[in-house]
Every structure is written in structure tokens, then in C-alpha cells.
């Protein structure tokens, strides 16, 4: 109980600061024809508890940027602070990552997949089971723990992925086009589910997608990126109230926001 109390105090402190701060980040990689600039002068702050979506054409480096926030890649220059400290190597205490489809380990059951991050850190078995079961309930899959990934539908698999990303209770959740492979209806349902989970857990979410509808529906703020070299060319505050509903998609506000992002992307293309 003591630990929980401390944790929530810590959370309160973090909430005052930005959860993620990216400053003057640039990235250059070595291609066949020499140096290729991939990301250029990116600066952004993500406030604690916010839901920020990054959109942009494919190849603009949005996934690279996310991988850097996760500590999985190092930028050529610039800094990334997560919970006030720089993130040079993956730190599951601060950041959970949800990948594109098919990132679940096919040789583990749903429950074992969710337990994976805990077992990497050698958490006691009972603790692992208890946490993983709680996560299964949270993502709406109670009773599905014993299934293997190939026995689950695309949407269920991504629910398990989300559970895996949240199982260590990191303050930040990074999501790399998690619903890209799903059909339109499942995608909408999953978006809605994600918002429910987000509001229940108070996480900070950075979500990468190329779907504008998904971006506006989910986000507090949409960051629009240009084609390579990726730069942030617009920041759109989504003023729609929460909780979001499907009906909002038919409103003028929704349409105007979507249109503004589309115009930005179209112009630079």
C-alpha cells in the first residue's frame, strides 16, 4: 500500500511536467548514396496524461521518432527526455511500447505474452499471473488467457499487445500504427476501446498512424509531419469534448479538423 501511495504522489509530480520532451532532434542515416536526412529539427512536448497522435506520409520517419522515444534507437543529435530524464536505452519502467500487428510471440499464450515483460525482469510468478490477469480484464479479454495468438482475431491480438504494453504500469505508452492491419470496423471499435483504457489508466499516449480519421477521433493534439526529411509542419489541437463518441465523426468540427490536416499533408506532397 505504501508503494502505491508513493507512486501516486510521483504521478502527481510528473503530471505538472511534460511526460516527454523532444528538443532539436535530427537524424541522419547512411544510405547507398551517402547521408540521408531522416528527421529534421523536431521539438515537441507531450504533457502528462495527454493523447498525442503523430500523422504523416509513409517514410516520413514517424516510426523512427517513436522508436527513439522508446530508447530503441539513438538520434544523430538532439535530446529526448522522458519523465525528466534522458532515455538512451529502453526503460520499461518509464515507457511501454505497442507495436504493429504480429508482434506477439506465437509460441506463447495470450497470458504468457502479457507476462513477458515481467518475466524478463524476473518478477515472482504469482505477481506476474495476478498482473497479467488484471490486464486481460482491463482490455476486455477475460477468459482468453490460454489462447495462442493464432487462435485470436486481429483485434483481440492487438488487445493483448496493449495489455503487454501496460503490464508494467509505465506512465507513457507509445503505439506504432497498432490498428493499421485491422479492417475499418474493428479499427473503430479498437480506437474506442483504447480511449476507454486510456481514461481508466491515466497514461500519456503517443500514437503513430496514417489514418486522419483515427488521428482526429483519438487525439488531444495531432502533430503533422512532412515527407522525408520529417519535420513537424502543423500542430492541431482537437477541441472535441471527451468522452468521444462515434457521432462526433459526422460533426462539422470533426470535418474541419480532418480537412485542415489533409490540406497540410497534401500541400507538402
Amino acid at each position: 500500500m505504501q508503494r502505491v501511495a508513493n507512486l501516486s504522489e510521483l504521478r502527481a509530480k510528473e503530471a505538472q511536467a511534460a511526460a516527454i520532451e523532444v528538443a532539436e532532434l535530427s537524424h541522419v542515416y547512411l544510405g547507398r548514396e551517402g547521408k540521408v536526412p531522416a528527421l529534421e529539427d523536431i521539438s515537441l512536448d507531450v504533457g502528462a496524461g495527454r493523447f498525442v497522435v503523430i500523422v504523416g506520409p509513409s517514410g516520413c520517419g514517424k516510426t523512427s521518432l517513436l522508436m527513439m522515444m522508446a530508447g530503441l534507437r539513438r538520434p544523430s543529435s538532439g535530446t529526448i527526455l522522458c519523465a525528466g530524464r534522458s532515455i538512451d536505452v529502453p526503460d520499461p519502467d518509464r515507457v511501454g511500447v505497442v507495436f504493429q500487428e504480429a508482434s506477439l510471440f506465437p509460441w506463447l499464450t495470450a497470458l504468457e505474452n502479457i507476462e513477458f515483460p515481467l518475466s524478463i525482469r524476473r518478477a515472482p510468478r504469482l505477481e506476474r499471473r495476478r498482473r497479467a490477469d488484471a490486464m486481460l480484464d482491463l482490455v476486455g479479454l477475460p477468459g482468453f488467457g490460454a489462447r495462442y495468438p493464432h487462435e485470436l482475431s486481429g483485434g483481440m491480438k492487438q488487445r493483448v499487445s496493449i495489455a503487454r504494453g501496460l503490464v508494467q504500469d509505465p506512465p507513457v505508452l507509445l503505439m506504432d500504427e497498432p490498428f493499421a492491419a485491422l479492417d475499418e470496423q474493428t479499427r473503430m471499435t479498437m480506437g474506442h476501446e483504447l480511449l476507454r483504457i486510456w481514461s481508466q489508466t491515466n497514461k500519456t499516449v503517443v500514437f503513430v498512424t496514417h489514418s486522419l480519421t483515427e488521428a482526429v477521433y483519438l487525439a488531444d493534439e495531432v502533430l503533422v509531419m512532412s515527407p522525408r526529411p520529417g519535420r513537424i509542419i502543423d500542430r492541431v489541437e482537437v477541441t472535441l469534448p471527451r468522452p468521444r463518441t462515434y457521432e462526433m465523426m459526422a460533426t462539422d468540427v470533426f470535418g474541419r479538423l480532418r480537412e485542415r490536416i489533409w490540406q497540410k499533408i497534401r500541400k507538402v506532397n
Partner: protein
Amino acid sequence: MVLAAWEWLPRWAIVNAELLPPLSDVLAMFFTILGRSQVQEAIGVTTGEVVLAFMFAVPIGAGVGVLVAESEYFGQIFRPMLFYVFSIPKSIFLPMFILVFGIGFEQKVAYAAFSTVFIVIMSAAAAVESVKADHVLVARSYGATRTQVLTRVYVPSMLPFLLEALRISMIFNFTGVMIAEMYASRSGIGQLIASWGENFQMPQLFAGVVLLAAAAIGFNETVRWLEARCSAWRT
């Protein structure tokens, strides 16, 4: 059907019983020769050769295979060479092995290991390449160490492929030992079968064939059963 035909075609003199003895005669002979000390000794020798050759070929082949698949440097140097050698029938090297090792136990082991090692290398390299980069990334993002990535991602991904490789390698390995024994040898089941054939002792010859078939099928099915158990997750 086949077994019944084997029994009755020679008995009804449709097939020459001298060439194909009836099944019951072969089985009777099978148990007779199993009782002979000469045969028991030969089984011992052959088993020793097969097991030892396998113990050389599998770790060496697996090591080289992983190296070739994981290291760009080694891959570029050795891959073309391995592919060339893999395509050559290994039996043409047998005379060289006799010159170097003689015709004893060592020569059988060396030749069988040599004829097996290439298929192990190929399979191990393919198994490593079957590991998904995404899965490695997931493990790393949860703070897995290099060792953990190896044991928690590489090994389970590769296991079904490795078991399959083991099964196929054993076929090559067994064949290698048999060829070496039949070509030039003083002991072993292969040598016995060759001499039974030369002396036209058909019941003994077929009994030997039954023995080898039983051993080979036994190993193959055991590994296949393991494979099925370890790859329940593969669709």
C-alpha cells in the same frame, strides 16, 4: 496389402522366393540374427559410429550455420563456398577419407560427419533467418539483455526448425555411415548387409534391411513427435 503380397507372392511362386523370401521367413531370420554375437557386435559398432558422427556434425554445423546467418562478414565469405560444396555428392570423397583415416571406425565417423555437416549448416542458417526482427525489437523494448533475447526469442523461434533439421540430418548421417561401411569395412551392419548380398543370403539381407528400417523410422518418428509438441503454435 504390401506385407501380405510380400508373404504370399513368393509362397505362390509368382515371385522367385530365392530373390524375395516370404515375410515370415525374413522375420524369423531377423530374430535369429539378432541372437548372433557377430550381429550384436556389428550393431554396437554401427550405433557408435552413427552417434559419434552426429555428435560432431550437429554442434559444428549449428555453430557455423548461426555464424553464417548472423555475421555479414562470415556470411559473405562462406555462403557461396558452402552452397558449392553442399551440391557435390559427398560419396565421391570417400576414397580420400580411406586414404587419410584407413577403413576403421574413425573413417566412418569422419565421413558421416562430413556428409552431414553441410545440411546442418544450411538448416541452422535458415532457422536463424526465420527469427522475426519485430520479435527481437519487442523483447529489447522490454529491457531484455542479449542473453535473454537469445533464450527467449531466438531459441523458441528456431526450435521447430532445429528439430526438423535434426531429423533430416540424421537421414544424411545414417546414409553416410552405411555407404562407408558397405564400401570398405571390416565391421558394422552395412558391411554385413553388403556381404550377405554378395553371398546371395537373401533372408539375412532382408532381415538386415528390416533392422535398419526400424531404427531409422524409430528415430524419425520420435523427433517428429517432439516437433509436433514444440510447434503447436505454428498454424
